[in-house]
């Protein structure tokens, strides 16, 4: 990521990010104040969307197994992935995904542990993690709800659906509600992926019940899950009040 870098005065006081950034804000503008920067133990920045790289820091070396404890199950999973490919580096995404499942996001520990098992530098894995939408480079809630807001879904009311989801879960840090690009289920638009389970079409008035189901750990909208749907269902005429 190449951005204009400005030397920040060392005494600059940083206010928490949440106070300055509206939700969903993304910008590369430098008239936006610097947000508080999460740093690894040795001073390098934790990767983030548009944080500039600190070129004055020495790059982190491959983590030392003696000082980097890795949970045995995670190590076994990553090593199994590495064994599948002619080049072990191919396991980068599966390894990061596995570490994310353990740590909740690609946290410094997650990256360091994956790097330690794979014998790669953390920097390499950070570069991979920051590319992919499903690898979280900031702490997020456990319950992943991806609401598709791409074209077919938005023609059927996805933007209102996402709004409603965000409102219903606004004060619950356990939720990670995101607008997402086409999830490949436009036949059940507007839809969402709830912890990997596709459900739709979702009416906005079903959102409170759905959120409650997610909180309770129940199956989300059991009657509306994708796997129940026939490929070409002549009876699948959408009722007029559904969707739009």
């Amino acid at each position, binding site marked *: 990521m190449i951005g204009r870098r400005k030397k920040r005065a060392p005494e600059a006081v940083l206010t928490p990010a949440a106070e300055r950034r509206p939700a969903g804000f993304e910008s590369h503008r430098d008239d936006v104040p610097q947000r508080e920067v999460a740093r690894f133990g040795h001073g390098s920045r934790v990767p983030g969307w548009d944080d500039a790289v600190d070129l004055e820091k020495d790059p982190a070396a491959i983590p030392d197994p003696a000082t980097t404890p890795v949970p045995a199950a995670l190590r076994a999973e990553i090593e199994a992935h590495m064994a599948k*490919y002619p080049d072990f580096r191919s396991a980068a995404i599966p390894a990061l995904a596995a570490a994310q499942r353990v740590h909740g996001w690609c946290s410094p520990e997650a990256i360091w542990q994956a790097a330690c098992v794979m014998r790669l530098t953390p920097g390499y894995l950070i570069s991979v993690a920051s*590319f*992919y939408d499903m690898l979280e480079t900031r702490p997020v809630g456990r319950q992943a709800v991806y609401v598709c807001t791409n*074209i077919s879904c938005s023609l*059927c009311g996805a933007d209102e659906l996402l709004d409603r989801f965000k409102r219903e879960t606004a004060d619950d840090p356990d939720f990670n509600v995101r607008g997402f690009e086409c999830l490949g289920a436009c036949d059940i*638009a507007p839809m969402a*992926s709830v912890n990997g389970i596709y459900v739709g079409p979702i009416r906005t008035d079903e959102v409170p019940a759905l959120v409650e189901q997610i909180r309770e750990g129940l199956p989300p909208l059991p009657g509306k899950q994708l796997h129940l749907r026939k490929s*070409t269902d*002549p009876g699948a005429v959408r009722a007029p009040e559904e969707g*739009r």
Partner: protein
Amino acid sequence: MTGPTILFEDIDERGLNTIDVYRRRGGYESLRKVLTTMQPSEVVDELMASGLRGRGGAGFPSGRKISFIPKVDVDKYLVCNADESEPGTFKDRELMQKSPHMLIEGIVIGAFAAGATKSFIYIRGEYVEQADIIDAAIVEAREAGFLGENILGSGFGLTLHLHRGAGAYICGEETGLLDSLEGKRGNPRLKPPFPANQGLYQGPTVINNVETLATMPHIIKMGGAEYAKIGTETSAGTKLVSVSGNVQRPGNYEIELGISSREIIYGLAGGPPEGRAVKMWFPGGSSSPVLTGDDLDIAYDFNTLAQAKSMLGSGAIIVVDDSVPVVSVALKLAKFYKHESCGKCTPCREGTRWTVSMLERVDQGLATPMDLDIMASVQEQIIGNCLCVLGDAMAMPIGSMVAKFRDEFEAHIEAARARNPWAGEGPPDPDPVLVQGASGA
């Protein structure tokens, strides 16, 4: 009539995802025929004779693609592109979820024809259920001896692994996919060299879409010449189309190539809701230039759509009815491509960004009709100047919308300006962006 049903013949049969039911339906018989009675070159000949063209977007003849693989003694690879992220497309999902063994059989046949000994399925990370189904099917196929060493005693061996992606449209582009599969950021590579010569781990590699591979067992079963009789001369066979948007019966339909588009949109998918008309439609996913309600009678096949200055693409028809403003569709689309641009080359990275800004100006009443000309020229600058075709994939549909609905864009600009307190004074807070970071997709 919409023609014969090949891929979807038994698709809704309960338990088709298990090997027992699939074999009871005649599954893996084509593979047996290939491995026990045919040479790789004969398989390629059948594929050539069938006229099968790639179902992933580019429509390249599949037999020819395999024939490009050099006959040298190095590790060769077959990669199945199951990234399916083109907005509007959900056909591969259906095949993988309901008939994973059809795909596996196709992969083994394709790999045999290409001489590949290692194969991968690259599935998008969001398809969790489908990936689990395929993982289970791979285990079943291996236990039944259809994968692994010395398959069916033929001496041919193949390994197959499922690789889950993590959410990036650009990893559907074949070279972006290869980089991602090698464990890097999914940036497309400069071509040539093409993957057939230097692909995965620098080895010769065939990359095919799920639907393309799933069709191969059927071609072997019925014979290439017989398959070629379905469809039109230049577009043989059947195609899965995913119809979505403002239609009454969205879903996946298998059609014979060459039937009229009206029959798909109105006949199969039920057309837009009561009282509305088709304003525009994307014939092949969001990357295809839009067609209007006047174009509904054109035949749905590769060449006719190309003549209409659009494309069949992935076979995803998105219907937009007359209640939807064209500007909102254009903006949605441009934002998608801006988000998914990998940032490697300038016309795409900057062009998608500027297009979004300009469309936002149009929407907020800060634009003048001259901005439409600037926007059109930006699209022209993008087309043909990018490393991969993601840039073109935004420029073509946006360009076609501005060209075909210019009146509406101008009316939208006027109406928005009338509402806007700053009209005529320019933007209140000029956006001083000079450098945009590579936006990891």
